[in-house]
């Protein structure tokens, strides 16, 4: 406690609040560091850039922690990670940012067709990983949030900033494309 007295003499107030804030942050937000890194790793495609993004996102998260009003701390952190990633993408790989998923613009859904086969059942670990890596970034992020993070549609809508209807249609297209890649991959096997 003598540390606190020292801070009061020196600083008035801010150090003490900062420390409490840091402790709270560590307790509430840091448990989701794996989720943050997993998302950043899938989005950036490599460890180095993922660490940069998470580091930056964590600093911003702490800075904004005062504005966190409860609710899902995981979604809150993932939102910051995702936004940090897209800022980073614009600075480091601007050409990727302009790759709109033309799926959304041109695809016509045929509700009677069954897009899913059972090929996926036998897909190898490598095939699955490579298939996800091939997806356009907006499809990849929704697959990661849904299938690896088990986020609800509502959480995905919050993190990605789109309406739930868009989440559902984007998820359907992402899964369809994944299925097609896996079908293709298995078809090439002797």
């Amino acid at each position: 406690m003598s540390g606190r007295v020292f801070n009061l003499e020196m600083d008035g107030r801010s150090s003490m609040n900062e420390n409490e804030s840091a402790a709270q942050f560590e307790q509430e937000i840091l448990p989701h560091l794996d989720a943050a890194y997993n998302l950043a790793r899938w989005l950036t495609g490599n460890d180095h850039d993922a660490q940069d993004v998470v580091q930056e996102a964590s600093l911003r998260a702490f800075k904004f922690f005062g504005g966190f009003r409860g609710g899902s701390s995981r979604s809150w952190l993932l939102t910051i990670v995702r936004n940090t990633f897209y800022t980073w993408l614009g600075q480091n790989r601007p050409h990727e940012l302009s790759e709109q998923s033309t799926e959304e613009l041109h695809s016509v859904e045929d509700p009677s067709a069954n897009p899913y086969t059972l090929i996926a059942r036998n897909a190898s670990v490598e095939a699955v990983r490579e298939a996800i890596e091939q997806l356009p970034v907006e499809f990849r992020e929704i697959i990661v949030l849904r299938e690896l993070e088990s986020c609800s549609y509502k959480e995905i809508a919050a993190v990605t900033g789109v309406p739930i209807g868009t989440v559902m249609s984007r998820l359907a297209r992402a899964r369809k494309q994944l299925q097609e890649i896996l079908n293709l991959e298995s078809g090439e096997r002797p």
Partner: protein
Amino acid sequence: MNCEDTQKLLAAYSDGELDLTRTLEIEEHLEICESCREAVEGLSALKKAIWGGAPYYKAPVELRQRVIASLPRSVPAEPKSHFWQMGGWGAGLAMAACLSIGLFLGALVYRPHQLRKEVVSELTSSHIRSLLATHLMDVVSTDQHTVKPWFDGKIDFAPPVQDLSRNGFPLIGGRLDYIHGRTVAVLIYQARKHIINLFIWPSTGNEAETSSPTSQQGYNLVHWRKSGMTFWAVSDLNTKELKEFSQAVESEPSTGGTGRQ
């Protein structure tokens, strides 16, 4: 519920996002409709394949440590308590004892070469500790106008503080440290993944003039003096880039306590 409606809601059903009523309606339909059942199984197989096949990447240990280390911690009550806690200060204790008895050891210590060796050693230890323990920064800010005034009242000098983002070395915070008998200011910069600790204290005139870069335990150190201050940059960053960092620091005009930009 018919096939057309079911197909539209299949994914939501499979993802557990439907209300109870519609969930039950779909399950009733699935009992009698093989093609819809196949669709559900196919989607289920895909989801299982993703969950089972796609790696879930966990945060590496060094990332976790860096994030924790970047959170602010309280300044030690007195620099002396910091002093006593460090294992590497045993030699310092012995020196103090000898000085009070006689001066012959003191004469040895204050030869410039010996002094410099000890300072290098302490700087390296401090750098390593700052990375491992939860005490990298006392003030976390990329804004030099926040970091610089933070030192007011805590130390008996005003360290020059500049953000060097446009040179590729963003400022990320500051802290106090204790090197060879005095409290020093430390500014923390980042170059990609590498942390640079920039130690600053007023020159006493005893130190060696600016000398060539050195290294210890795999860490690189660059040293210079300017405007009455001694600077030591310590990092695992390579020497070439660390020298670029030192040049970037050196070439910035002193803020002199007035606002810039």
